[in-house]
């Protein structure tokens, strides 16, 4: 005997709605009560409020930093004087040691950016243009794995590879060659930074290269240009937005880095961040450290602004997506 068809009135009764529907209705009623339609105009601000508040914590902290930088250390009490002055900024200009640190940091940032782009470009190109999906996946994994491993752990890896009893020196000793001091010098810091920044550079270059149609390259080569010329006159100019984005990010991250110069430099190659750290925690002069911090923020912003003015914002541009 066939089952009786379900009674449609029963199915429509409120009690038979799925529990999730009823729950959603309740939530909807609550939302409408808490956020009535006349507040609709303010919705985006309500969505933004938590983020604005969180970043506000940082902004208040920066306020303290500015305030600290304007008070000189009283050497009698080891507290900051009450009077406002620019003495800390004067001290930075007066002491040649800070100029040297600044020079070393800027030179390091330029070197790291140049070397990173040189190696990142072919890597990004290979990811985009390889015809083997498996190879692409391998290159992506080899790229993301170090990207997800922090600076301290990676620096530790280099200590093992480059140290006195490390891999390289053991290999040299095995060959009967004298050991090398590979650590705690400027080249070690540059090397560590390049390795740290390389994934950033590649990830920022990849979308720019992916946007270049391969046909254009083929056309250039079809017209008889050797691949070097195609790269110089077609691929690299077309990847310019990515190159700008990658260099700005690598440059500023290097400019402000602390861990690599500290661990791989071992005190021989301090960057500005180390000088800031030392002012606060070694010589206990928070006013001077705060002034150095302001200098670092200003310097970084000026350089980025200059690059953006001259070359455009590249892939880092804020896209006006609201329609």
């Amino acid at each position, binding site marked *: 005997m066939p089952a009786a068809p379900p009674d449609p009135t029963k199915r429509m009764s409120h009690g038979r709605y799925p529990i999730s529907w009823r729950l959603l209705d309740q939530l909807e009623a609550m939302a409408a009560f808490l956020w009535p339609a006349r507040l609709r105009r303010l919705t985006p601000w309500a969505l933004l409020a938590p983020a604005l508040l969180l970043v506000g914590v940082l902004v208040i902290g920066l306020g*303290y930093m500015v305030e600290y930088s304007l008070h000189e250390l009283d050497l009698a009490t080891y507290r900051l004087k009450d009077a406002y002055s620019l003495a800390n900024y004067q001290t930075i200009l007066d002491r040649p040691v800070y100029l040297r640190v600044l020079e070393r940091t800027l030179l390091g940032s330029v070197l790291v950016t140049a070397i990173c782009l040189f190696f990142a470009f072919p890597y990004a190109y290979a990811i985009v243009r390889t015809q083997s999906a498996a190879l692409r996946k391998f290159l992506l994994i080899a790229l993301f794995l170090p990207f997800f491993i922090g600076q301290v752990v990676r620096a530790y890896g280099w200590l093992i590879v480059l140290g006195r009893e490390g891999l390289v020196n053991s290999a040299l000793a095995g060959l009967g060659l004298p050991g090398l001091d590979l650590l705690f010098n400027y080249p070690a810091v540059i090397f560590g930074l390049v390795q740290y920044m390389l994934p950033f550079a590649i990830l920022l270059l990849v979308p720019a290269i992916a946007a270049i149609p391969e046909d254009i390259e083929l056309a250039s080569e079809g017209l008889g240009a050797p691949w070097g010329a195609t790269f110089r006159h077609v691929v690299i100019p077309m990847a310019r937005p990515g190159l700008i984005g990658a260099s700005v990010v690598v440059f500023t991250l290097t400019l402000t880095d602390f861990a690599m110069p500290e661990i791989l430099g071992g005190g021989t190659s301090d960057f500005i961040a180390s000088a800031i750290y030392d002012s606060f925690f070694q010589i206990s002069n928070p006013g001077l450290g705060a002034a150095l911090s302001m200098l670092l923020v200003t310097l970084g912003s000026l350089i980025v602004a200059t690059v953006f003015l001259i070359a455009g914002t590249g892939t880092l541009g804020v896209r006006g997506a609201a329609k």
Partner: protein
Amino acid sequence: MRGSLSKRLVIWGLVSVSLVTLSLPTLIVIGASFTQGDIIQFPPDGFSLRWYRALWQLDSFRDALLRSVYVSVICTLVSLPVGTLAALATVRYRLRFRNAIQVYLLLPFTIPLVVSGISMMLFFGEIRLLGQLWPVGLALCIINLPFMIWSVAASVNAIDPEIENAAMNCGAPPLQTFLTVTLPAVMPGVITGGLLMFILAFNEFLVSLFLTDSRTVTLPVQIYNSIRSVITPDLAAVSVLYIVIALIAVLLLDRLVGLEIFLRSK
């Protein structure tokens, strides 16, 4: 890759140099962690798991690990709703002062970490929050928030606003539209962002260095402090933990959204 032999040789040659540079420390650390000996040397002295056992029995490292997990969870849980809503607001709505807000929300990325860390240390010290663990999680959320907003914004940019309008035309109230249409559409960005936030917080070192003391030290800071004394194989074992977690994150990312998503030109 198409092209002449010389092109392929040059490109793949440079790629191999990058590959070795990127992977060498990871591989070496893994090898060193299984040594039987008391020092790190090459080739490693026998095979054993003794350093892993030693590590788990060492309270300082186990506690630091648990603290790191705790702050990373706080960071992720806070940033998921905050970053998702902020990304929706900045991309979807016509806001007044839109550019100023974008610049403001990017501050955590543009201000150097050493400056952010000390700034928040000064502020937290003033309101007596230093010495507790949860503010560290909050601070890590603040400094990494742009990454969360970015990854969600990329997903929001990719969806067609008309599907939300269609849902509302069909009678879906605002919350239902959000939960059943908008949220599923931006889910890839939310997942990527959440993973990224956890990994970044779990690895974060510099800001944590300023905000923790000897009772609240997190794992990266603990490693940093140990590196400065003697390098023993137990540190290699901790590092392998980081490598394993990174590997899990990469594979998860690949499974859930596909690594190829990063190939997309904007």
